[in-house]
């Protein structure tokens, strides 16, 4: 038995060609500063929270009943490919799906109804996501321990605090709900983004999501392997800390108020980084789930030109949405005379994240 990257095999994309990286970074830089000068000067997007709560409890119960029948060998593909990447993509398209189908959510129906402590905010979700990405990127062998712990903590939380627990503290639901704000099928994504509730730990969640995906790129380069004595978990934590630190430095007091504008950047980078994994290993995941071993996936949808186009397109689209979203929000936050200078640090940071993301798709 071998330990594989992601627990699902060592598939890497070809490095993005350097000329594409440079041109992509140039487009991001140019478009950002054009946007700064040319976009509207009065805030345009009124926060609009999307219609409230929907759960399909029959689906939740069905999933719960189906889980014991998943073949043992299919779990890594189920969790790391179909669930983790699939959930992100489906949420971006259709909205917060994990809330709708989470098989643990029925626990909230037997709730003691205690009030969820507001000061905890999203911190438990950030911790849960960091733990999951540690399992994904550093210690795939701990998957079953993680899943057991996750189930235990969330059933207990759901029973004690009810639905509020899942909304604030379940990392996957928070992730799915944040990305779900981008869904074009449920109203204007910009209005949904600006309606993101600012709670303690929001910046931490965003930093874990962006930092962990970035470290997945860093950790698979030969350069990182040459730094061998540095353990992977240190790299993961350092990358997350770097994202959080640089963001807070750029936004200062407005860190929470602007955090929603990083969601499109996260989404763009997740698509760029995991596209080929989803379309190729996703097939194997479905085969394993239906009990077929030794299936050879078709990689027509992941030929090098297609992958490069998807990567560049996703990163740039995410960047542009982020810039527009941040611009509109700063108009509301800052007094008139500071509006132009005030949004510069975040704009520069976003160009940095985007160029850095493109560079990581190239780095060796």
């Amino acid at each position, binding site marked *: 038995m071998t330990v594989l990257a992601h627990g699902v095999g060592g598939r890497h994309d070809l490095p993005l060609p350097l000329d594409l990286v440079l041109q992509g970074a140039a487009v991001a830089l140019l478009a950002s500063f054009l946007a700064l000068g040319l976009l509207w000067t009065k805030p345009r997007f009124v926060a609009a929270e999307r219609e409230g709560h929907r759960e399909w409890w029959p689906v939740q119960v069905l999933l719960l009943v189906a889980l014991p029948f998943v073949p043992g060998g299919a779990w890594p593909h189920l969790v790391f490919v179909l669930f983790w990447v699939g959930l992100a993509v489906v949420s971006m398209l259709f909205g917060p799906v994990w809330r709708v189908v989470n098989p643990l959510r029925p626990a909230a129906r037997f709730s003691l109804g205690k009030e969820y402590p507001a000061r905890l905010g999203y911190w438990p979700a950030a911790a849960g996501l960091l733990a999951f990405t540690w399992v994904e990127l550093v210690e795939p062998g701990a998957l079953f321990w993680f899943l057991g712990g996750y189930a235990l903590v969330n059933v207990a939380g759901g029973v004690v605090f009810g639905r509020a627990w899942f909304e604030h503290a379940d990392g996957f639901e928070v992730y799915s709900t944040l990305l779900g704000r981008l869904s074009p099928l449920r109203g204007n994504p910009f209005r949904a983004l600006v309606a993101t509730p600012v709670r303690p730990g929001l910046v931490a969640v965003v930093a874990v999501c962006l930092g962990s995906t970035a470290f997945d790129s860093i950790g698979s380069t030969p350069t990182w392997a040459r730094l061998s004595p540095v353990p992977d978990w240190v790299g993961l934590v350092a990358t997350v800390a770097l994202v959080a630190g640089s963001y807070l430095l750029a936004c200062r007091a407005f860190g929470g108020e602007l955090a929603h504008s990083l969601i499109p950047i996260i989404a763009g980078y997740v698509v760029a980084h995991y596209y080929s994994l989803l379309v190729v290993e996703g097939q194997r995941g479905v085969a394993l789930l239906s009990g077929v071993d030794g299936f050879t996936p078709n990689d027509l949808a992941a030929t090098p030109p297609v992958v490069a186009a998807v990567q560049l397109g996703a990163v740039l689209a995410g960047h542009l949405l982020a810039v527009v979203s941040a611009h509109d929000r700063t108009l509301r936050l800052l007094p008139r005379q500071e509006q132009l200078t005030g949004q510069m640090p975040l704009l520069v940071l976003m160009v940095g994240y985007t160029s850095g993301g493109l560079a990581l798709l190239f780095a*060796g």
Partner: protein
Amino acid sequence: MIRVLLFALVVVVVVAGCTAAPAPTNGPLVLDLSVDEPSPQREEVAKGQSVELTVTSSKPVDVHVHGFDVLAKAEEGKPAVLKFVADQTGTFDVEAHPDTLLTQLVVR
């Protein structure tokens, strides 16, 4: 005006992406690798080129080329020799198990 400019930039990017010329196929890529002192680098391989890896190790170890599923054992005084044709594109790790990266092959 701005739309035209942005559109032009996108066109430039796409065209530049489609014009990279494929590298010609040469003789085999020959690499000597060490498990005891790994110094992984990226190695460019042309699709269809043959690859010959010689891996030395002071203790018994399995060496594996991901993607091509070529496997060999190396031990003290008996290096592992792996020969295969790089017939698919992608980036592939050459690893000594469990997780010592020896080199990374970029096949295009």
